[in-house]
């Protein structure tokens, strides 16, 4: 053992001996290439910063998100309230951070859900083909035919009409977003599956007599993982944008639970819109910064992980 480390030291390099597992070295190589892409790294750093800001930031804030202070109504940004206060005297900065928790969670969770549903159904359709494929893909086609915004609006309206408690709405919004999100994903994964199936090494698994589930989860899905990671990343941005639209129109997560989208709703009040931009501009900028950072990072990932998409 010491001989080995001695050799390494004399080699002057810190990289371990040629990794015995090709897979892990492939990942490491990808990460190293990603690190060289400054734009992608800055995107990643920004995303991490926004997450930390939203989840840890409020702990350091002297104000609570829901504490009304009628003496401090609609105050512009100042030393005490960096981003001003709203019509109930609540600190905007604190609320923006709290809203970020919800928006980021919704974006992330609905991504996980739609990627899970989409890749599972897509993989099954592409792997088994035949009737299963027909059923899954026809449902996907159907959902892709109906415009998603009206679909989401209807669902949002149902939530309001049934008076779903605001705390639960967040979860239902996640579900709604993944219902409209999965069909496109399923289509993509299925296409990948169909082409993978034809490759030689899959023919080899047939010769080896492997079981379906093993083939699907150990040989096929790992091959599309890089692609899935890329799509999933870019999907988070899309989900955050979608959620903000819904919440802006009062059909997603509604007040008093703050999200970036429903905070911009303040702009629907003419005076707030014209005279008090501090109420609605900060949450909008937060959405913008977060989504652009995610997209840039996702694009960097794509360069590294998706060989077909060489920049």
């Amino acid at each position, binding site marked *: 053992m010491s001989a080995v480390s001695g050799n390494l030291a004399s080699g002057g390099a810190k990289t371990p001996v040629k990794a015995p597992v090709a897979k892990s070295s492939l990942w490491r190589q990808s990460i190293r290439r990603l690190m060289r892409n400054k*734009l992608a790294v800055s995107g990643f750093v920004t995303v991490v910063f926004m997450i930390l800001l939203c989840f840890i930031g409020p702990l350091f804030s002297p104000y609570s998100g829901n504490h009304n202070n009628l003496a401090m109504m609609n105050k512009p940004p100042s030393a005490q309230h960096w981003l001003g206060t709203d019509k109930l005297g609540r600190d905007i900065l604190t609320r923006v951070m709290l809203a970020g928790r919800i928006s980021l969670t919704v974006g992330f969770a609905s991504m996980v859900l739609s990627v899970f549903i989409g890749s599972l159904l897509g993989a099954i359709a592409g792997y088994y083909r035949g009737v299963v494929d027909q059923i899954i893909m*026809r449902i996907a*086609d*159907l959902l*892709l*035919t*109906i*415009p998603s*915004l*009206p*679909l989401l*609006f*209807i669902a949002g*309206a*149902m939530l309001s*009409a*049934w008076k779903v408690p605001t705390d639960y709405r967040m979860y239902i919004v996640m579900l709604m977003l993944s219902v409209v999100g999965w069909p496109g994903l399923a289509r993509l994964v299925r296409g990948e599956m169909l082409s993978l199936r034809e490759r030689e090494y899959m023919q080899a698994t047939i010769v080896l007599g492997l079981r379906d589930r093993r083939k699907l989860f150990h040989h096929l899905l790992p091959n599309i993982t890089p692609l899935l990671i890329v799509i999933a990343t870019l999907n988070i*941005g899309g989900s955050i*944008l979608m959620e*903000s*639209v819904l919440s*802006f129109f009062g059909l997603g997560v509604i007040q008093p639970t703050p999200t970036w*989208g429903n905070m*911009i709703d303040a*702009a629907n009040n003419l005076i707030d*819109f*014209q005279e008090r*931009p501090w109420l*609605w*501009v900060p949450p*909008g900028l937060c*959405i*913008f910064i977060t*989504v*652009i950072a*995610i*997209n*840039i990072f996702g*694009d960097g990932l794509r360069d590294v992980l998706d060989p077909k*998409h060489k*920049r």
Partner: protein
Amino acid sequence: MSTYLVKRLTYMIIILFAASLLIFCLYAFTPGDFISGNLKLSPERKEELRQIYGLNKPVLERYAIWMKNAFHGNFGYSLAQQKPVLQLFNEYIWNSFLLAIVSTFFTWLISVIIGVIAAYKQYSLFDSLIMVIIFAAMSIPSFFIGLLLIKGFAVDLKWLPPGGMTTTGSNATGLAYVKEVIQHMALPVMVMTLLSLGSLTRYFRSNMIDVIKQDYIRTARAKGLKERKVLFTHALRNALLPAITLVGFELPGLFGGSLIIEKIFNWPGIGQLYMSSFSSRDYPLLMGFTMFIAILTVIGTLLSDLLYKLADPRVKL
């Protein structure tokens, strides 16, 4: 060719049929309707109106009636506006189309130019800058950038009107009218162009990068052609070819309006009509609109496939 078309058309009809059922059920199960939302009506009057509009019948029966009428070209009667849905569409759709066609034109023009230059100068400063701007354009919430522009250009600077299609109370005609509409269009067109610019520019850029690597581009250069000619005659033609398929996908956007932007800019288009009908639960109109977009989407997809096969001499049906 014809068997292919027959197969495609049959499938289209089945999908649309399923979509219509789904759309109908969704709206039918949405709580609240136009009548119960109206506080001015007495319970007896509400019941009477429900009878008149057939809202008491079972869902499937109502669906059957709706479909039967739809086949006769009757998409129902808007309860809020007291006009046939189709007539309303006809009134509003062209305003949406105007906005969409102008912004589509600008989107394609700008993204082709930027895409070509960025691909040609791949990895240059210009290219990186363009990529960042493109990401920015793809990451702004549409309503937020709309609001920002209204605040900046209309409220603060007062250069452009904040919304609508004409100035309230204006009865300008002729050129003055055209000028007024153009002024009102400027901001929404700007936002719509900006929002769709990103993905299309990326598309053209990556197409161009692929094409520039091809052998025939090397041949064109070896012939001593001017670089401009190499790019625009030899490369761009090949890069534009696959983009023809996108024309079909633009179809729903061209006629379907934009819910968010028309709402934000108060533009009297079909998207805004939908948004205002949504709050009053004017179901015939809402269903008609959703179905209309579904039809456009399906036709657009078919159109894309056909165009692609038409455009590329190497692909045979």
